[in-house]
């Protein structure tokens, strides 16, 4: 497949920080194609966040190419990167909401401040309301982020990421530090976003059950719940990152069949964990 049709492409990307002796990302290559959801599994410190930040040019790689929406983002001056980043929605691990702005202002931020697709003020409010309705937080418009719970903050951050309807979404550990019920709500939102807006996504997580959910369930717009995807399945690809290296790339069946002990540890289902 040519580089132009992929939304995000890593070619032999290596990242190293000044004082480190080892590479944070080591010769990484993969390709995120339209319509695909990629689940990137990895332990803490394996380079998951570094990978996402490199993908949108917040970190510049030592070597290799990062092509985002067909353009080599790693080599361009930052002023040019901003216009490409508009096509990407990113959810930060700690939500990174603007703490002195209200929820409505947070969600309106990309619409108000991006160089190109600034909306007229009249269209702003409906767009913000729609994005907040999507994450079921329409009633929090005038609240400050500090007044919301951790799970709600992450939902607001999702609303802020999707308000400009970007074709590619990057989620950095969307369920980290959340209880199982809230984590399920967040993953359901990610699946809903995928199925309602047909977006492509790269989901970074350390929990296999998150990936399992994305791979096997679909959003049912009538009931508003998740239904099993059945035989047609979903377009989901799994990757496993270990100390900056990509050690696995393939389908869920291949992942579960993998013999590597590191991979096997991730793939353990919750019930197996309980039994062990």
């Amino acid at each position, binding site marked *: 497949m040519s580089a132009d049709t992929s939304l995000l492409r890593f070619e032999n990307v290596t990242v190293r920080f000044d004082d480190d002796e080892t590479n944070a990302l080591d010769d990484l290559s993969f390709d995120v194609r339209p319509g695909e959801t990629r689940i990137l599994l990895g332990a803490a410190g394996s380079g998951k966040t570094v990978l996402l*930040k490199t993908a949108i040019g917040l970190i510049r790689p030592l070597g290799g190419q990062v092509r985002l929406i067909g353009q080599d983002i790693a080599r361009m001056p930052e002023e040019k990167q*901003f216009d490409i980043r*508009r096509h990407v929605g990113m959810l930060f691990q700690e939500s*990174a909401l603007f703490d002195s702005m209200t929820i409505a202002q947070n969600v309106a931020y990309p619409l108000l401040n991006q160089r190109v697709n600034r909306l007229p003020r009249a269209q702003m409010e409906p767009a913000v309301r729609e994005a907040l309705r999507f994450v079921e937080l329409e009633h929090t418009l005038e609240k400050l982020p500090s007044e919301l719970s951790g799970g709600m903050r992450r939902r607001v951050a999702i609303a802020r990421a999707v308000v400009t309807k970007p074709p590619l979404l990057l989620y950095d550990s969307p369920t980290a530090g959340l209880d199982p019920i809230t984590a399920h709500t967040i993953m359901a939102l990610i699946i809903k976003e995928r199925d309602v807006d047909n977006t492509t996504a790269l989901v970074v997580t350390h929990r296999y059950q998150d990936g399992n959910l994305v791979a096997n369930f679909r959003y049912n717009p009538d009931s508003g719940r998740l239904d099993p995807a059945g035989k047609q399945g979903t377009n989901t690809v799994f990757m496993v990152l270990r100390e900056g290296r990509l050690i696995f790339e393939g389908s869920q069946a291949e992942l579960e069949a993998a013999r590597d002990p590191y991979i096997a540890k991730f793939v353990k289902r919750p019930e197996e964990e309980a039994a062990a």
Partner: protein
Amino acid sequence: MLDLLKAPIQAVQDFYELTGRAMRNVFRKPHYLDDIKLQMDTIGVGSIPIVLLTGFFSGAVMALQMGRSLQDYGQTGRTGTFVSIILVRELGPVLTAVMVAGRNSSGMASELGSMKVTEQIDAMRALGTDPLQKLVTPRMIATALMLPCLTVIDDFVGMLGGWLIAVYVYALPSLQYWSTTWRALVWNDVAQGLLKPFVFSFAISLIGCFYGLRTKGGTQGVGRATTQAVVVADVVIFVVDLFITKIFVSATSS
């Protein structure tokens, strides 16, 4: 030895890069007018109380000191001349700049520093907006517009303080004080008195933002950035002041 020099040289280079980009952004879209207005209010209107107080008392103290020294020569009548020259040329611009640096360089460094350590700056960049365009340029423009205005206020209130002392302590007639004050000033003084705050304003805003944006290491880092911003801004104000004064002195004496 070379390694020791690497960090400061890198910092200077980063500062020039920030300055260059912040200046270029003045002529680039998008322009965040709301942010400029908000900063003008914070920096300009918000600094008025402190400028009024320091201006008034510094003018009064100067009149006291000058009056006493001039008494020895029987020239108390010229108190107004000295008060106005020193205020307009030197004390007004420098004192106002130092006060605003204490108030706003620190404010900028801590605000931007907190945003940096909580990933809000990265979030801005990830959302396709330039933090320099959104945060630094509005602060730079607002300070450049407001500091000369604040300096004029400071100069006037200082003269008012001097007038009170001249009239009530040295028993000078009001008219004499104000006419000597007015006659002492030439266009050159006014130009110097307005050019200085304009130049200082860039030191205040850019140094504040620079230290804020390179904050590392959590809340402690924010505290460090705030202190450094004020210290460096103050020192730079005095150094730049010397150079500008030298240029004006050379220009007028030749």
